[in-house]
């Protein structure tokens, strides 16, 4: 075994870095695992920031006519809460798991384009920092994450220009990442890893990457039109000059609804991995779970106008989109039933990952049911733009996606860090989170039906909804407490010495667990040859004559163990500065759009130099 050689190569003026350890290596790494961890830590930091924004929102709404925040501050905070949680937390956190796990699960050494992977991460984090710099440069975006013009295009503050530019930047990150991961799944699978032997998490990953590739161009067009309207006086959305405000809404939701599935399908993949492992049973109806996920992806492009039932599209459009919205409930239901089928007759171990996964299913069901009531268009005339909707999508995206992501953290923590999170504190966190979550978002159904609109910075006592607002605020602080428990658990765990008594602590089924914890930089000493779904499981267990599973004694497997021949060279791409250089140019260009053409030129130069250096350097340092 070996890694890349150590002779430094000179490409132009900068020495190609070769260090794979030390703090500097984090800036030059092209290793999918390190990039996955970078994604994870950054996304979690944004989760905390978005969470603080949520606490500010709930504190403001804790009593009627509150003056903790004024209208201006409130509008910025609720806008940034949405942007942060969607674009800077759930999407990159999913990217973290995809990055870390997809190559390991399909038996690859890295993603298809390792430097592009680094570029994606740097563009994402710089885009996020660019968005947040708006707080110090004249005000954060204040027109909602949905940014409806003409309000967003005529607002005099600078915030929505940051919004348009910032989301274009993070969109570049997501597009590059999506192409990279899709190519990885299609081209880099180990011998024998046919598409229908892939773990469901990889399937959902592939589906999400395709959704991204098709949905992001739509929002990018819309964002550029908004930018032109705001910055250079065009009239795409200006009704007084013949523009069409509804054009934005159609473009935005044609992106925005697939985006919902971009956020939730990773969690579906995670749940589909965790439930079989902790039920000691294979996933029930693998093909149905896979195909229903793909179906959700397709139908997800055909339901966007259900965000626009009150817009006045007319009864024909409302009928059509009401029906498609009802249809998408079917494949979602298939998944739920198959998960129940997986647990049925199982031998269920309720370790923390399992608690979060089952919690995610249970909470998502509630969000799914309230979603069906939105398909009932006339009833949605009452509910749209009220807290009922806020309740609905938090049950889906927090109850579904975030519970799933926490489950994933508990499940794959030993893989990445060779330490196991404390089980007791994991359970404590789960139960506080479950109670806090339901206290926060459950009452919002009542608030919405009781007539509380979204995005209002305060409400009068005479609305009669003070009590449920207070319950919701208490719940939000319980969610904060549970997050604190998680952070303390993680910090305490990381102080313990590295090393696991059992490198396969959950008795897992998929290939990533066949590697050491944490996996070496090259992942597999020998690329595994795959014979079935749940390959790793079948290396550990065989069925006896009565069809019962028995553990294979160590060394007696009919699968050859991973080779231990010494001395053959594994070619891995060397670290590189260039992705970071190329990425730095993008926010510089964006600041240039706001302040000076000279900066645009400078940023463009940096990016071009970055791409040039990238193109010219050899794949490995020589």
């Amino acid at each position, binding site marked *: 075994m070996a890694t890349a050689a150590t002779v430094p190569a000179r490409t132009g003026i900068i020495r190609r870095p070769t260090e794979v350890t030390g703090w500097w290596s984090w800036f030059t790494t092209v290793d999918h695992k390190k990039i996955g961890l970078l994604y994870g830590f950054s996304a979690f930091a944004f989760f905390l920031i978005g969470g603080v924004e949520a606490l500010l929102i709930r504190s403001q709404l804790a009593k009627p006519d509150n003056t903790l925040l004024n209208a201006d501050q409130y509008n910025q905070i609720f806008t940034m809460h949405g942007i942060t949680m969607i674009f800077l937390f759930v999407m990159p956190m999913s990217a973290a798991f995809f990055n870390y796990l997809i190559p390991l699960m399909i038996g690859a050494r890295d993603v298809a384009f390792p430097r592009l992977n680094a570029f994606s991460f740097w563009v994402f984090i710089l885009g996020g920092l660019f968005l947040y710099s708006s707080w110090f440069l004249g005000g954060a975006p204040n027109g909602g994450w949905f940014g409806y013009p003409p309000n967003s295009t005529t607002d005099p503050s600078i915030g929505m220009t940051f919004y348009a530019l910032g989301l274009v930047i993070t969109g570049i990150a997501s597009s590059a990442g999506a192409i990279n991961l899709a190519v990885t799944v299609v081209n880099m699978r180990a011998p024998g890893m046919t598409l229908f032997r892939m773990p469901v998490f990889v399937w959902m990953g592939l589906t999400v990457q395709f959704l991204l590739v098709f949905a992001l161009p739509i929002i990018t067009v819309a964002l550029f039109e908004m930018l032109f309207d705001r910055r250079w006086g065009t009239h795409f959305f200006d009704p007084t000059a013949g523009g069409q*405000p*509804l054009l934005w809404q159609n473009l935005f939701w044609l992106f925005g609804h697939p985006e919902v599935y971009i956020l939730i399908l990773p969690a579906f993949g995670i749940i589909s991995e965790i439930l079989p492992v902790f039920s000691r049973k294979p996933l*029930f109806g693998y093909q149905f779970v896979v195909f229903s996920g793909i179906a959700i992806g397709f139908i997800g492009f055909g339901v966007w106008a259900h965000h626009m039932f009150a817009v006045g599209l007319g009864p024909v459009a409302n009928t059509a989109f009401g029906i498609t919205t009802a*249809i998408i409930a079917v494949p979602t239901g*298939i998944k739920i039933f198959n998960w129940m089928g997986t647990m049925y007759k*199982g031998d*269920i171990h309720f370790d923390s990952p399992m608690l979060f996964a089952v919690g995610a299913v249970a909470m998502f069901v509630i969000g799914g049911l309230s979603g069906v009531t939105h*398909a009932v268009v*006339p009833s949605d005339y009452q509910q749209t733009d009220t807290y009922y909707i806020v309740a609905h999508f938090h049950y889906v995206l927090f109850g579904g996606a975030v519970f799933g992501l926490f489950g994933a953290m508990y499940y794959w923590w030993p893989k990445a860090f060779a330490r196991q999170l404390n089980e007791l504190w994991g359970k404590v966190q789960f139960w506080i989170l479950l109670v806090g979550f339901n206290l926060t978002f459950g009452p919002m159904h009542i608030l919405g039906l009781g007539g509380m609109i979204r995005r*209002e910075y305060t409400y009068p006592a005479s609305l009669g909804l003070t009590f449920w607002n207070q319950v919701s605020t208490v719940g939000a602080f319980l969610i904060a407490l549970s997050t604190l428990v998680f952070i303390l658990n993680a910090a305490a765990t990381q102080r313990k010495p590295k090393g696991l008594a059992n490198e396969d602590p959950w008795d897992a089924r998929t290939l990533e667990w066949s590697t050491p914890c944490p996996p070496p930089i090259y992942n597999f000493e020998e690329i595994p040859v795959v014979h079935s779904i749940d390959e790793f499981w079948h290396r550990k267990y065989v069925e006896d004559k009565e069809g019962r599973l028995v553990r294979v004694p160590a060394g007696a497997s009919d699968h050859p163990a991973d080779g231990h021949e010494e001395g053959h060279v594994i070619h891995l791409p060397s670290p590189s500065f260039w992705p970071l250089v190329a990425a730095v140019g993008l926010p510089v260009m964006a600041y240039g759009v706001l302040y000076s053409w000279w900066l645009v030129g400078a940023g463009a130069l940096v990016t071009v130099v970055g791409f040039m250096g990238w193109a010219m350097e050899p794949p490995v340092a020589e």
Partner: protein
Amino acid sequence: MRRTRWILALLALSILLVACSKSAPQNTMNPKGPTAQTEKNLLVLVLWPAAAVFVIVEGGILLISIRFRHRKDRDRMPPQIHGNTRLEIGWTIAPAIVLAVIMVPTVSTIWQLARQPADAMQITVEGYQWWWGFRYTDPDMTVSYGDHDAIVTADVMVIPAGRTIDLSLTSLGGGAHSTSGVPDHEVIHSFWAPQLFGKQDVIPGETNHIVFSADEPGVYWGQCAEFCGLQHGKMKFRISALDEADWQRWVANQKDPAVKPTVGAAQQGMDLFFGTNGVGGQCIQCHGVGGTAASSTAAPNLTHFAATTHECFAGCDFQVFNPDGTPNVEALKAWLRDPNAVKLGAKMPDYGLTEQQIDTLVAYLYSLK
């Protein structure tokens, strides 16, 4: 199982609380007119199958979790079931049938609510940042003076109880456009009075419709439901439904021009309002007062500012009268002193009025019965 029952009881209790809460004036579960009633009925119709699915799935998850949880004495692997095609087909088709059944009344109601009866009373709703204007466009709803324009009101829409109303929703600018001549701040709003009708968006360049009626006389609450900028949260309105006699009285009063006080503080306030003596006159740049030279439509029409006890101003953020019927003088004074201080971002400028000037303006405005 105890937990399931507990959750169900809590759910029923909370639905009950919403349904019975008479003190919530925007409660969609307590409709006061046929449109809101139809919309509520449809939701309740869906809640039954939704509740059934909730119980089956959540109960199923709980039961499976309890029944099949790992036991210490169990050392054998469970049966390795990979799936069951018949079951899969079953749980694909069954929900599809339930959904198809739900969609039948849904679709028919979509079309039913889209119908615009020819004999409905016509009112045009105008959304501004951040207040509402109402224009009564029926031919018999014109004023008795000037060009016999339509009656207009701001923030309170008055209707006859029981009559079917057809609202035309338009978005207009407000604020600066009166002086610059170019409409601006035309943004999207949404018109919503929860106890009377579900919302429809108010979109610049488009005209949407809401058809509704109020069963009983009363004051109904509403507010803008689509984020429309800084003071979206305080863009409210009231719908006042009157019985036939009150309605006739109200219409007759609205047809009259504004009162012109001839003595005291009210007259001084009027002079300041119109700039008659060379002082003031800024008010009429934006506000209209019927039967006078003040004809701007950029800000709320003040012709009958204090006509009824349920009047409100500044996006219904403030009531003109206290609940006991006395004038809410302090709120109006605070507003005139510095609109931005009481409502951040308000389009009405602070004219640096003296306390004495404010007193006279208040007297004038309250004389506008």
